[in-house]
């Protein structure tokens, strides 16, 4: 630690983002002394995150908005203080950049050009400081939510900041994760005497650690003082604005009024299995009756979300059976039936939006209701007890209850996280289904909207509906008088080694959010015993694939292609790739190449004897020979390119492109970071498809479904990308000045040899063709 804690200042400061006419923050005056610990409160939209991002220097330049007044770190402009301020965001996925945990911790100091020896030290000390003890090759994606957030904190810490800014750092964590992160921050701040600013609307988590509370409203500071004082004076007002003030609990709905009715959902000896994951043996027997609320609880990784999706008929059971509404297994229902019978709320609401506006989103739910007439005629839905006729509330009334009155005409994707959550519950209610299946229905709610949601669920229960919900929210379980089904903690984690004392509350790779095990980064830095193919520098394998191809495509003749192919088949075994694997990889090209050749049989340049001719087709000696040449040439180009392609891990590829090829590091690392999101996006795609089935659109044609899915995937990409950009910039990404690369990317003699050999093979092949006289220039063919 070379530096003392930083001071932070705002002097009549304001910010108006580009494209908006009103400022988010205006006339903010605030001075935070070195070492002070501040809790920043305010309703959503009050500009808290903007202020943190501004101090961290990631708000963007004049392209992005208009600034007025002054903002300072250590009484100097923010732009001169890069690295002095560390920013931790809500979503770990927006902050973990590289696949392996240690590489990721090094990312920030690398960007700032810190000498390699110092980075190596910090990579050891930073995870320790937040209580993470990870094996050298641990992958960030395999950690639990609390562990990932602490890893992100370690990444911030590796910058050695003098002030720590936390933007709702525990909002996405389960209770165990919240405790982990809060404890880690507490230890750090006390030990290093850092300046701390926390944005959070759950006051009780941080109240003990901070010594000052600042309240923002409508872009201005409205209260500022010691914790007890502000809470005592402003507690009622804060609570009315939705802040969770200790001692002021939101209103609970009345206790259950309806008697329990018929069994609506019944599961027997049920085991579940997340998509692409291992089965979770629950052996669950469960009966859900009308007028009842069942809460699935248990730590992350215990399979709550998976169980919920399975009950909803969106995942096949690993074992056992489910039977619902006297209509058999939900898994076999049509999508329209499913949407009318079950209202499903996904963990991430953005997965389930299918319409252009909030109002249309609710209308989709109501159409599902209209589509269920057949069910009602057969008495299927009549099992809900009589107090309600089952018809859905009018959309406008529902919109008002959900606190979305002014937002009926906007895109669901443009809502805040809490609003999206309420809308997703609303879409489930809009279809008036007998059963609701909800994943964390109160996630991200302030105390006001929490109370409204609890009331809506209680009404559904009292009208004779049933609710099954996966939740960490103890208050909700109690408020609704839910019957609790606690899932056991999952088995011992494989890759994650936490300290023994912490094992009890920080387990597991997390099947709740489906496994993010990265395919783009399976292989490790190759050891000495690795095969030539694995040891090859990625740049060498790209060069050896593409440069020879440029030579081969100059001619289309049997001789050059055959010579090249024969030489390659002799040389490829030297790469040491198992024959079966190689065959598996080139199988598609072995199928595709003959088809391309077949095209040439029909449409190739005719010459010699003509065997058949009709319309454009003409089969002749010439076209047959050219077809053979095409077949061999495609193989000669593609087979080595596939053989040399040994699935490099993204980090290694980036290191090679940046160091060996000297491509601009910002683009290389941007690409590498995005590649880490690949598995996240692939899981998104899976969930998007399931959600469309749950919303009643799964019976639509393939094209429509695919279009809707691709669009939603692109929205999610941009969102995740925008968030990741802030996380990366906060860690010095894009800083001017030279970057440190701590992982060497050696270029060995063998790399040169492989590239040279590949070029020589092509050159020999083309030369042979010239000598034999078969060289047939492509340009001439195209021209003639």
């Amino acid at each position, binding site marked *: 630690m070379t530096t003392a804690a930083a001071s932070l200042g705002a002097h009549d400061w304001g910010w108006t983002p580009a494209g908006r006419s009103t400022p988010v923050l205006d006339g903010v005056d605030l001075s935070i002394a070195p070492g002070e610990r501040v809790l920043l409160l305010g309703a959503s939209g009050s500009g808290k995150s903007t202020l943190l991002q501004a101090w961290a220097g990631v708000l963007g330049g004049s392209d992005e908005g208009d600034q007025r007044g002054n903002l300072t770190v250590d009484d100097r402009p923010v732009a001169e203080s890069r690295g002095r301020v560390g920013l931790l965001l809500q979503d770990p996925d927006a902050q973990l950049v590289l696949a392996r945990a240690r590489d990721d911790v090094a990312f920030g100091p690398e960007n700032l050009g810190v000498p390699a020896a110092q980075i190596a030290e910090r990579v050891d000390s930073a995870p320790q400081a937040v209580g993470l003890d990870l094996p050298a090759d641990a992958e960030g994606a395999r950690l639990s939510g609390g562990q990932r957030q602490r890893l992100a904190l370690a990444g911030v810490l590796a910058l050695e900041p003098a002030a720590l800014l936390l933007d709702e750092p525990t909002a996405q964590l389960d209770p165990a994760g919240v405790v982990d992160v809060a404890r880690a921050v507490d230890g750090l701040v006390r030990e290093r005497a850092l300046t701390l600013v926390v944005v959070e609307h759950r006051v009780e988590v941080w109240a003990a650690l901070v010594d000052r509370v600042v309240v923002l409203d409508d872009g201005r500071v409205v209260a500022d003082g010691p914790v007890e004082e502000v809470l005592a004076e402003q507690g009622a007002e804060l609570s009315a604005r939705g802040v969770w003030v200790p001692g002021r609990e939101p209103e609970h709905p009345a206790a259950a009024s309806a008697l329990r009715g018929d069994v609506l959902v019944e599961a027997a000896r049920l085991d579940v299995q997340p998509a692409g994951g291992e089965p979770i043996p629950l052996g669950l027997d469960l009966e859900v009756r009308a007028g009842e609320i069942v809460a699935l609880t248990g730590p992350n990784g215990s399979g709550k979300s998976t169980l919920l999706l399975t009950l909803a008929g969106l995942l096949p059971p690993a074992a056992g059976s489910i039977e619902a509404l006297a209509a058999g297994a939900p898994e076999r229902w049509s999508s329209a039936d499913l949407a009318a019978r079950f209202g499903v709320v996904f963990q991430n609401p953005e997965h389930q939006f299918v319409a*252009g506006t909030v109002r249309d989103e609710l209308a989709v739910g109501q159409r599902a209701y209209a589509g269920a007439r057949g069910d009602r005629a057969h008495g299927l839905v009549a099992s809900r007890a009589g107090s309600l006729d089952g018809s859905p509330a009018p959309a406008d009334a529902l919109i008002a209850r959900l606190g979305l009155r002014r937002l009926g005409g906007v895109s669901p994707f443009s809502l805040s996280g809490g609003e999206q959550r309420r809308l997703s519950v609303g879409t489930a209610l809009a279809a008036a289904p007998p059963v609701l299946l909800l994943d964390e229905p109160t996630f991200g709610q302030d105390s006001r909207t929490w109370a409204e949601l609890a009331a809506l669920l209680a009404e559904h229960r009292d009208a004779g509906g049933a609710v099954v919900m996966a939740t960490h929210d103890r208050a909700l379980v109690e408020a609704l008088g839910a019957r609790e089904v606690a899932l056991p903690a999952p088995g011992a984690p494989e890759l994650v080694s936490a300290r023994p004392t912490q094992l009890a509350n920080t387990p597991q790779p997390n099947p709740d959010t489906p496994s993010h095990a990265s395919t783009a980064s399976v292989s490790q830095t190759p050891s000495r015993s690795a095969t030539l193919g694995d040891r090859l520098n990625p740049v060498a394998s790209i060069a050896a694939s593409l440069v020879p191809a440029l030579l081969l495509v100059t001619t289309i003749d049997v001789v050059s292609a055959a010579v090249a192919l024969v030489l390659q088949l002799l040389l490829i075994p030297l790469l040491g790739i198992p024959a079966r694997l190689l065959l598996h990889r080139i199988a598609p090209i072995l199928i595709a190449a003959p088809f391309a050749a077949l095209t040439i049989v029909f449409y190739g340049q005719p010459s010699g004897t003509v065997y058949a001719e009709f*319309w454009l087709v003409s089969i002749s000696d010439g076209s047959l020979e050219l077809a053979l040449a095409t077949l061999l040439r495609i193989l000669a180009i593609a087979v080595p390119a596939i053989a040399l392609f040994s699935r490099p891990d993204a980090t290694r590829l980036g290191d090679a492109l940046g160091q060996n090829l000297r491509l601009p590091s910002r683009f290389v690392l941007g690409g590498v970071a995005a590649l880490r999101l690949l598995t996240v996006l692939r899981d998104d795609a899976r969930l998007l498809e399931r959600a469309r089935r749950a919303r009643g659109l799964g019976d639509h044609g393939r094209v429509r479904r695919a279009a809707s899915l691709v669009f939603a995937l692109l929205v999610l990409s*941009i969102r995740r990308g925008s968030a990741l950009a802030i996380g990366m910039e906060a860690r010095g990404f894009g800083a001017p000045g030279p970057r440190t690369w701590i992982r060497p990317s050696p270029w060995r003699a063998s790399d040169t040899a492989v590239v040279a050999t590949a070029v020589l093979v092509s050159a020999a092949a083309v030369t042979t063709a010239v000598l034999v006289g078969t060289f047939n220039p492509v340009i001439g063919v*195209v021209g003639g």
Partner: protein
Amino acid sequence: MVTTAPSPTTRPSMRWRVVDIVVASVLGVAGGLVFTLWNLVYSPLTAPIEAVLPGLQALVYAVWLFPAVLVGLIVRKPGAALYGELVAAAVSALLGGFWGWTALAWGLVQGLGAEIVFAILLYRAWGLVPAIVAGVGAGVGLTIMDLTFYYAAARPEFMVVYAVSAMLSGAVIAGLGSWLIVRGLARTGALSRFAAGREFALQSEREATSADEAVEHRSTS
């Protein structure tokens, strides 16, 4: 009406911001994922039929071109179209695409096709027509690659049908398609950090204001 709108007087910067780089990369990755899904549903079913088509198969090939135009339209920086298409190609290779590293060559040439169009327009025009022309440009890139690699020995008639189909496909699927996607994305608010999204926000703010005025007018009369 339109002339009174607050229009940015300064030319937008040509320098890539961090958010430009990261979003372009993530969109490229999503594009690569779409390629992979498309390969799964498309290739095995149609490859046998394609072999006997006189070049018309290229009519649907522009699915492989959309990241170029889409990323260009969203990011609006020099090199965006090329970069988006290259990342998408690399990802489809990493996900077990058929062609190993050769996919990079296709990504390069197709991306350049769209990039050259945006460059000729000095990176200042991002409407529907530029989008369609950029789609055609990417289609030219695809034509060049396929006709030298697979169909170098085909007759001119085949090549002409193939080239026209690819360009038409580029215009409709990659050009018009990407333009529609960008409009839809702007409506979701996801593009708030990009000029493409802000223009839409200003426009809809104006529409909303005039709609409000109309409502007020009706209620007072």
